[in-house]
């Protein structure tokens, strides 16, 4: 048995982030058993982790497409809480309460406006990037604060709380992670999986199919790999870029909806810094900021890795400050490992023993 060859195969496969996640889960589970309550892998904590990961993963799906197209969206965080705030305001000022006739229109309007807000945010980003040729980093750095400001105008610079009776039941249950199995959709197949996780999986599958099996998806990869080649091949580059950002806006809006369902209020400034978490999930999953590379499965794993570390540190009562340092370190290590994987330098593999001792 050739250890070096097996390691190389695993190392270079698409499954890298899955192994990384498994390794991290194992590490924390052992530490948790040894020094703490041993609740790390309990069903409940697992649900909490999955739900937190879903909150990152949904906007990160859109971010993956943007990053594959060699872009970046720094405004995703504030756009997300802007959407959440819009939703909160709609419920706060709703004329009809949950359960009363006509409430369905309130919900439709609220959700519709939220999605529209997300679309508009993405459309603004995409149009500015593709029409002005200013680099995405700068454009979205600008819109990041613009969206924050717009959110603060809507929220009148405070946190928006809606009356409990105005919030539809399905939304209250959306990010529920407790033990009452009646509050899960289940469908008779998945016992007690948070609804947010189900939505994430459906969306992720949709994006996988979109990227792999449509002309649009292949064009996104082509633009990210070489924009001038794409143009030369007749790809409508400006349209594709606008479409990517707008579509990502929809995911940001859905992220905003989940954020609202999770915290039950809308605070526009909550979003500051969320974009970095979202980008980190994509990068941990193997997305390359220079474009042309990124995977949805990887992004999901990236989101899980971030929450697994955060939750593990919480279980072990590691101070928040150290958690930040650990997550930052993991991101850098992950990118170094990713570069090694793609460069596959022989010296690296030569460090490994050629044959296992069991021979």
């Amino acid at each position, binding site marked *: 048995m050739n250890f070096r060859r097996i390691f190389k195969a695993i190392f270079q496969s698409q499954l890298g982030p899955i192994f990384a996640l498994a390794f991290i889960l194992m590490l924390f589970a052992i530490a948790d058993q040894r020094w703490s309550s041993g609740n790390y892998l309990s069903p409940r904590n697992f649900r909490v982790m999955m739900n937190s990961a879903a909150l990152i993963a949904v906007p990160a799906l859109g971010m993956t497409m943007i990053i594959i197209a060699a872009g970046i969206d720094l405004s995703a965080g504030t756009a997300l809480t802007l959407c959440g705030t819009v939703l909160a305001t709609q419920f706060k000022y709703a004329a009809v309460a949950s359960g009363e006739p006509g409430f369905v229109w309130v919900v439709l309007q609220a959700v519709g406006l939220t999605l529209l807000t997300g679309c508009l945010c993405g459309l603004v980003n995409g149009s500015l990037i593709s029409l002005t040729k200013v680099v995405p980093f700068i454009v979205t750095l600008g819109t990041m604060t613009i969206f924050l400001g717009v959110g603060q105008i809507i929220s009148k610079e405070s946190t928006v709380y809606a009356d409990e009776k105005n919030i539809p039941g399905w939304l209250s249950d959306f990010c529920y992670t407790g033990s009452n199995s009646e509050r899960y959709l289940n469908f008779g197949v998945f016992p007690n999986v948070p609804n947010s996780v189900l939505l994430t999986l459906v969306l992720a599958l949709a994006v996988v199919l979109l990227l792999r099996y449509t002309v649009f998806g292949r064009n996104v*990869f082509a633009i990210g790999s070489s924009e001038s080649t794409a143009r030369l091949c007749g790809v409508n580059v400006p349209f594709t870029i606008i479409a990517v950002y707008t579509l990502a806006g929809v995911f940001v809006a859905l992220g905003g909806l989940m954020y609202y369902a999770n915290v039950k209020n809308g605070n526009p400034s909550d979003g500051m810094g969320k974009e970095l978490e979202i980008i980190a999930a994509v990068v941990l999953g193997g997305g390359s900021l220079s474009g042309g590379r990124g995977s949805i499965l990887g992004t999901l794993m990236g989101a899980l890795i971030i929450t697994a570390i955060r939750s593990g540190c919480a279980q072990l009562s590691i101070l928040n400050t150290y958690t930040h340092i650990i997550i930052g370190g993991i991101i850098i290590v992950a990118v170094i490992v990713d570069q090694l994987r793609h460069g596959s330098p022989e010296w690296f593999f030569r460090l490994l023993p050629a044959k296992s001792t069991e021979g």
Partner: protein
Amino acid sequence: MRGQSILEVNEICKAFGPTKALRGVGLKVRSGEALALIGENGAGKSTLLKILSGAHRADSGQMSIDDKPFRPSGPSDTRQSGVAMIYQELNLAPELSVEDNLLLGYRGSGGGLLIRKRQRPKVIEALETVGLGGLSPTAIVGEQSLATQQMIEIARALVAEARIILFDEPTSSLPKKDVARLFAIINELKEREIGMVYISHFLEEVREVADRYAVLRDGENVGEGRMEDADDDTIVSLMVGRDVKNLFPTVAHRPGEPWVSVQKLTGFRYPKKINIELRRGEIFGIAGLVGAGRTELIRTIFGLDHSSAGSVSVNGKPIRPTIGERIKAGFGFISEDRKNEGLAQDLSIVDNLTLSRLADYTTIGVLNLKHRKRAAEKLLERVQVKCNASDQAVSELSGGNQQKVAIARILHQQADILLMDEPTKGIDVGTKAEVYQMLGEMAATGKTIVFVSSYLPELLAVCDRIGVMARGELRDVRDAVDWTEEEVMKVAIG
């Protein structure tokens, strides 16, 4: 002493994964002479140069400079040992001044401080040696012409007191008069007892500048000797390992009825008021110096560059100037910049091949990947691309094979009017012959080809008509048989 061996390379082996790029190469470079390193693409020339310059490390073998072992660990180490490399793509910092570029990486005294004044005489001397005595050391490099930039690169090697200079295809993008300048400088460097290794695809050029040659094939040194002792046929058959009967194979074809009409086409700078009538099944060559507007002309025809006036019509019908419309009307384009524009290097061969005509494989918007792969593989076979698998990244292919992928793409696109910008640039003699063969076959099936090239022998051999450009204008169009190289050059520099 002139003629003494400085650099010795013995039994160098290098493998990239399963592919053996070099299998025991040995050669000697003597002071004051230029050694031409000849070989097809993929023969291992570039790998050998990269090992010499410290960019790669050899798996086994020895190198020595002045009988002292030479094992470069990186580019700066190489510089210290007196080896400098002039790359095909220039390696200067365009925003910096000439002086700063020359002193980049130079470790003079000054304890980490760069005292420009103290280095001035050295800088000026180096510039004078390469014939740039009139250039101000504070001029910005990016504003200089390509040829001047190349001279600056050589000057940088002189500032670093290089004793061995490696040239990788230095003339591939130079106009003829600058090539002459470069050769004069190389002769000057010989006087200074500098040893040189010179890689080029152009045999006539090598003949002019090199004293000795070494031919690489499949990572081995298959022959060497004095330049004047070997004729072209000998060298070419060493390169390809078989006798090449015909460097310019042609396929019989007859231009038919008028088809594409370019009327008064004008860009923002170049081209200027160009009129061309192209016929079905015709190969139309465009000659001219680099910078004469040839590239701009065919880019404008394709709709990649904006036109400020004029029209392009097919069958008498004007076509709107967007790439999408032009592709629909049957135009296809091959970029001279294969690396950045022609192909998306990170994407797979299949992706690159099919990108311009993906819609063929969709049913209600869903791509049929299997169908697409099968079609792509059929094309790869047709143009004989050497690859491990069709989902391999294009960047892993050799230059010649990449070019075949680019050509296969416009075939796949079912383009009928092929605009090709330097389609044989940087590819080896054998592949070039295959490309000419393909062009002839395409013309025979009624496709029209516009062929831009700086290599006159191929234009004269392959084209039906040739137009010569100068300063953005199409100066003269004649049947290919009515041109000679000298006449083309006369018009081109006029």
